[in-house]
């Protein structure tokens, strides 16, 4: 009895499976409306590798499927959530290529998603109907876990690779490399040598750090292909009128792979170089300039140095060195980028306090400038253009 029962069950199960499979086997045409524009694995791979620009969209459920493995770089947009979140997840540019995929030929989600996107006005939509099972067969399982770029971002069109950045670092190409990542969390722990920290979150506040010359080469980088910060900063810089802006999209992870970890925030190595490369005779205090040398320069060739008076405007007005420009310490941070790198920068004030502070500000924020000095002295001016420099006691 028992035995027969088991057999009967088996037959029943087999029949059931057949019945379920029949429609598929019969016509090979799935029971849902297919999106007309289908692509295969190789074409999707081009998008995944960034060779063709576009966004790959995983239409499967997020927790059940996406988290367990998905096509690299794809974003999760479960078709069940489409109406709710599509507007925030899909790129704003309706000309962006969208590639939908889900769980293979029997899965309708990618087609449904594609039709919905079409209705939203997207013009370039493809469906990778064979989906994730086929991808795994060709290229192996993709990454699992949460999506890394929840919102696809607009890529800055002018991009460079590690070698081009290296040329700037070594001075072969003249330019400025800018780290767009947060200062404390990222930059301080390691960055491309000589890179300036300009977190994109503080871009508007700190944009004064950008070079004064709008034609200067500026390369932004951040935490790699999934990081939007460098692209955002590059767009902002271009909007400010910078003509030669580039992005190093592979960013710091790539740099580390190619050239090893860069300097950590402690500017120790930069400082060591500072001491070695300085051409003018130093004074007693760290960073200060010998007073005799200074007076000699002021009298005979003032154009040899970039002299910055960091006192307040009313002090400056009352008397100053003829060849000096006035940048009060409070404004200096915003104007750091305007300081030239082709001649020594010398700071003066009335006692050597503010100018010393300015020196250390440059050590911290423009460590690539080696020739920076301040005058450790009391300086007074009379109303006839004369001056008196008194050495510190």
């Amino acid at each position: 009895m028992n035995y027969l029962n088991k057999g009967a069950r088996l037959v029943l199960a087999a029949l059931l499976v057949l019945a379920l499979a029949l429609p598929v086997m019969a016509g090979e045409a799935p029971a849902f409306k297919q999106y007309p524009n289908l692509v295969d694995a190789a074409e999707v791979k081009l998008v995944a590798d960034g060779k063709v620009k576009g966004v790959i969209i995983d239409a499967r459920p997020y927790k059940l499927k996406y988290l367990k493995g998905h096509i690299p770089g794809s974003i999760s947009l479960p078709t069940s959530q489409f109406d709710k979140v599509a507007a925030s997840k899909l790129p704003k540019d309706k000309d962006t290529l969208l590639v939908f995929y889900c769980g293979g030929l029997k899965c309708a989600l990618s087609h449904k998603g594609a039709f919905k996107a079409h209705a939203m006005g997207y013009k370039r939509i493809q469906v990778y109907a064979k989906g994730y099972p086929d991808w795994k067969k060709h290229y192996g399982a993709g990454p699992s876990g949460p999506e890394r770029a929840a919102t696809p971002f607009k890529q800055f069109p002018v991009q460079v690779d590690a070698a081009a950045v290296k040329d700037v670092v070594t001075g072969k190409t003249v330019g400025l490399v800018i780290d767009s990542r947060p200062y404390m969390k990222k930059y301080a722990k390691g960055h491309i040598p000589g890179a300036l920290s300009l977190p994109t979150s503080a871009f508007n506040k700190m944009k004064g750090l950008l070079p004064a010359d709008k034609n200067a080469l500026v390369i932004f980088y951040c935490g790699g292909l999934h990081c939007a910060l460098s692209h955002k900063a590059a767009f902002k810089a271009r909007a400010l009128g910078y003509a030669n802006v580039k992005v190093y999209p592979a960013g710091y992870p790539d740099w580390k792979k190619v050239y090893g970890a860069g300097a950590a925030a402690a500017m120790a190595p930069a400082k060591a170089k500072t001491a070695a490369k300085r051409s003018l005779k130093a004074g007693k205090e760290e960073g200060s300039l010998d007073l005799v040398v200074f007076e000699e320069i002021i009298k005979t060739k003032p154009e040899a140095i970039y002299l910055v008076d960091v006192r307040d405007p009313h002090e400056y007005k009352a008397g100053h060195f003829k060849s000096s420009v006035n940048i009060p310490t409070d404004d200096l941070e915003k104007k750091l980028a305007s300081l030239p790198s082709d001649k020594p920068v010398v700071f003066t004030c009335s006692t050597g306090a503010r100018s010393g502070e300015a020196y250390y500000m440059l050590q911290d924020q423009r460590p690539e400038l080696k020739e920076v000095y301040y005058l450790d002295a009391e300086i007074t001016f009379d109303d006839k253009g004369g001056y008196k420099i008194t050495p510190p006691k």
Partner: protein
Amino acid sequence: MIKTVFAMALAALLLLASLGPALSEGNWRKGKYLYRKNCRTCHSAKGPAKDLSPSTYKQAKWAELFNQNKIPCKPKWPKITDKDLADIYAYLHGHAADSPSPAKCK
């Protein structure tokens, strides 16, 4: 009278001893910049915390704050190395209200 003098001398001695090498060897010019960078972001006239200049306190008060770890906002600081802290201390202490050259930030 002698007792008071003795007590004061003792206090001064204790204070000096507690300063230790780390805090007394700071570079005050660098500290002036580091103070602007790390502290004035909050401790300024328009900032969320009390407007603080070196001359706000006397030297003894700065010594007490730094040596006995009595700075209330310390948990909110960005990472500051001991060396930087020594520089900042050199600036604040060296330009305190009762120092030879009191300094006030603007």
